[in-house]
């Protein structure tokens, strides 16, 4: 049995097992900053520990869920049935409209309500409210265009509910993935008066929206 080092003696550097134990005990999502402080490691070392823990948890019954700054241990997607017996309820009861809205937010985040409506061709008020209520999406920031509309992104709860360890695990888009890549939402493009670099704006916008996905897949 390992014991807490007495104060004064230098604490050995934190290991992957330390991170695993910490995440096992904490019963809520923990922020990277908080975890780094508790383990007395810097951000870079924590990232290394996270990557190592993920690797270690492959083929295990538990998985490490990473969402932006938050970390949490959860049961693996293949264990859903086994755990369901204890939890009692599961699955999604979302109908097509909220699911489509959620898909748009997940793949295009951050995205505005107008952007979602442009893609779906129909009012997204109800679907957005429902998703916000369920804690599957959240307001992340505001778009610097007239009216400063909210932009929405997915939450850690979304990852868990849909069996994803991170955004990089989102199912690959079939067929017309190019249509998504070159997506230019008229409703989200800043007018030329606000931003002088108009020609590059839509591309930047699309690139910025794709960045989290690319970044995640690069890291994972």
């Amino acid at each position, binding site marked *: 049995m390992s014991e807490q080092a007495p104060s004064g003696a230098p604490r050995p550097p934190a290991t992957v097992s330390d991170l695993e134990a910490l995440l*096992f005990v904490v*019963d*809520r999502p923990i922020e990277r900053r908080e975890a780094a402080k508790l383990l007395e490691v810097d951000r870079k070392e924590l990232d290394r520990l996270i990557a190592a823990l993920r690797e270690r948890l492959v083929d295990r019954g538990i*998985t490490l*869920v990473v969402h932006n700054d938050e970390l*949490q*241990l*959860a*049961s*693996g*997607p*293949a264990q*859903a*049935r086994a*755990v369901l017996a204890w*939890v009692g309820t*599961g*699955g*999604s009861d*979302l*109908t*097509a*409209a909220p*699911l*489509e809205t*959620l*898909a*748009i937010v*997940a*793949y295009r985040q951050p995205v505005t309500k107008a952007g979602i409506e442009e*893609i*779906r*061709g*129909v*009012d997204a*008020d*109800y*679907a957005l*409210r429902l998703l*916000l*209520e369920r804690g599957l999406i959240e307001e992340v920031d505001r778009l610097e265009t007239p009216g400063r509309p909210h932009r929405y992104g997915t939450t850690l709860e979304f*990852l*868990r*509910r*849909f*069996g*994803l*360890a991170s955004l990089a695990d*989102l*199912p690959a*888009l*079939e*067929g*017309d*993935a190019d*249509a*998504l890549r070159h*997506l230019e939402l008229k409703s989200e493009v800043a007018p030329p008066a606000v931003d002088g670099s108009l020609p590059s704006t839509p591309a930047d916008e699309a690139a910025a929206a794709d960045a989290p996905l690319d970044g995640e897949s690069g890291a994972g």
Partner: protein
Amino acid sequence: MSIRGIAEGYELPDPAVPDIEGVIFRREQGGLFGRSRSYVALGEFSGPYGLLLALIEKDELDVRRVPLASFADEFLRYFAEIPDDRLETLSAFVAVAAQLIVLKSRALLPRPISAEPGEGPELDAETEESDLRLRLLRYRVFRDAARLLGERAASPLWHREPPSRQLPLPSPVAPESVVPIYSDPRRLVRALGRIALRRKPLAGFALAPVGQKVSIGERLAAIRAAVSAAGVVGVDLESLLGDRQDRSFIAVTFLALLELSKRREVEVRQDVLWGPITITGREGA
């Protein structure tokens, strides 16, 4: 199952049959003679692109090439079946229906022979059609992604539950200080008088106002007013209830508060377990 048949009012074996993905056919029982009516329930299931795409795909046609104008009639037939209780959704269908009608009418009109190819109204029609086609293709990407996501929802990741069973109990309410028996008899009389006042006669219950109703709308307005008056400090639930003790008033106030919270108009906070519940207005609400 024939789609045309449904549109003409044939009955379906099940109340809701997902025949075309995203478009659900519903049957409604009602009316004087309990007659059933079938309709395409599109209200909150899908948008106009979803319907148009479903119509194209049921014939196994390629969205990239098929002339969209040919679906104008069928689209309008479904459009007529949409329940008219969701105006904001209807307007979206109207917009696409109008586009399809324009495309169809242009296709029917004779083209001027003298016009240069790629010029004039022909160009407009092509641009409009390709614009609509692009929107359909773009929508399809996300619709398909939504289906994949929906499948994934069958295997969620569960996390450790917070130990709710270990929540601390509320601290006991301090009992009223007992009046010592050697107290001044006049104090005892006054105390007894207070107790007698507090105790309501049984007959009083029968006289309680029966018709006094409190509506959620009233409480919504009252909470909104109190919250905006309180500003950033917020107002606590106790003061919203005032000295009203009747259950219906408390329940309706609580329901109204839940509704405001659901609509994200207010933020409800309770810092300590069993502590005061503070309500503040949300920014931009």
